[in-house]
């Protein structure tokens, strides 16, 4: 393993980690709205959340570029705080997070739909505040969904390619994640062994994430009926 390969792994873990950490609460909020609330525009929000799943990733990357560019609404909003995510690893995390969002929302939504609202009513009748009901009933009962969302989101973020390449391009040590590094190596004659090593590593990391998810899932379900 060369330092450049290690660098790609470090960038990948950082990007996927941030995308999962920040994306998970957002996904939970969206899943809760979609599972528990009826409002005008419900179908529209549902479609919007799932759009990255069916849109060519290149298009998602292009839209992010427009939104977060110097003249984009998001770019200008961040500019107020002196922040730019263009060509930064944080931008790569945004791309990965947006692409992973539908995969995180789906299991959370399923968990919240299956979750028993009657238990939340019981907690409220026992004097619990809405926040306490959420923390002690809604969230613990949705735990298997949260774990599935984290694992799926992390794995998806780790493998994101198209949107990231367009949005923040491949800058070694900053935005060049594992898949981008593998792509770069495959362009250069004689670099196949390095590409193969990184590909093998990507498999190991994804596999470990899935196994860890299964383990946590089993622990979370131990006391369930």
């Amino acid at each position: 393993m060369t330092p450049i390969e290690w660098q790609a792994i470090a960038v990948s873990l950082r990007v996927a980690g941030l995308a999962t950490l920040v994306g998970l609460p957002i996904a939970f909020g969206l899943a809760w709205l979609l599972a528990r609330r009826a409002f005008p525009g419900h179908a529209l929000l549902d479609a919007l959340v799932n759009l990255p799943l069916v849109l060519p990733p290149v298009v998602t990357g292009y839209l992010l570029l427009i939104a977060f560019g110097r003249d984009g609404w998001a770019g200008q909003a961040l500019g107020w705080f002196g922040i730019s995510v263009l060509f930064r690893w944080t931008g790569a995390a945004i791309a990965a997070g947006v692409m992973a969002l539908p995969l995180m929302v789906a299991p959370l939504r399923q968990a919240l739909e299956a979750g028993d609202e009657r238990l939340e009513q019981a907690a409220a009748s026992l004097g619990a505040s809405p926040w306490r009901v959420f923390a002690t009933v809604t969230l613990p009962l949705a735990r298997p969904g949260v774990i599935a969302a984290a694992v799926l989101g992390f794995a998806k973020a780790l493998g994101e390619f198209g949107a990231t390449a367009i949005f923040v391009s491949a800058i070694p040590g900053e935005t060049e994640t594992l898949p981008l590094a593998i792509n770069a190596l495959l362009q250069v004659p004689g670099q196949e062994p390095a590409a193969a090593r990184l590909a093998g590593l990507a498999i190991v990391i994804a596999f470990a994430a899935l196994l860890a998810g299964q383990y946590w899932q089993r622990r979370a379900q131990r006391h369930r009926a």
Partner: protein
Amino acid sequence: MSFDIAMTIQRGDFARDIAIASTAARVALVGPSGGGKTSTLLAIAGLVRPNAGRIDIGGRRLFDSKAGIDLAPRERRLGVVFQEGRLFPHLDVRANLGYAGRADAAAVDAMAAALGIAPLLARWPRHLSGGEARRVALGRALLARPAALLLDEPLAHLDPVRSAALLALIDRVAGDLPLLYITHDHAEARTLNAEIVAL
């Protein structure tokens, strides 16, 4: 007046008027299944919103559509024992009993002893029998220190022996607490010495 309720609740496609007025400490709502008894209980608990009307219990106004009063369920201080128990599956019996947070460990132990469930404190709800789960639900409601107790068919699906035992237990632990008891069986109401309101 312990119970003074006059409200209209929506049941599917049609609205239904419910009137309960009693000075008795214990009232039994008796009627056939599907008659709106559970909807009435849920409306009193604040879990279903009446179309219009007024709900007074023990002199406290919980709901009044004209005055714009609609206390949240947690502000109503009603101990609700739901028909299905509604125990928290991810908490053991002790944590279920103490969920309201208004009782210390000694009070939980005392309640468990009074209800005959002391040996079950470390169990998970899924390992309880139907009768045991009802007792835990009853204890959990009482440990919230409610101003009144609402029970929805607590003897449903229990065999006659267990039914009689649980009914005697309810009679004992409820004490002087205003009690609203839903049943389809007049005999249960008589055992509890409750005033019968047909629904």
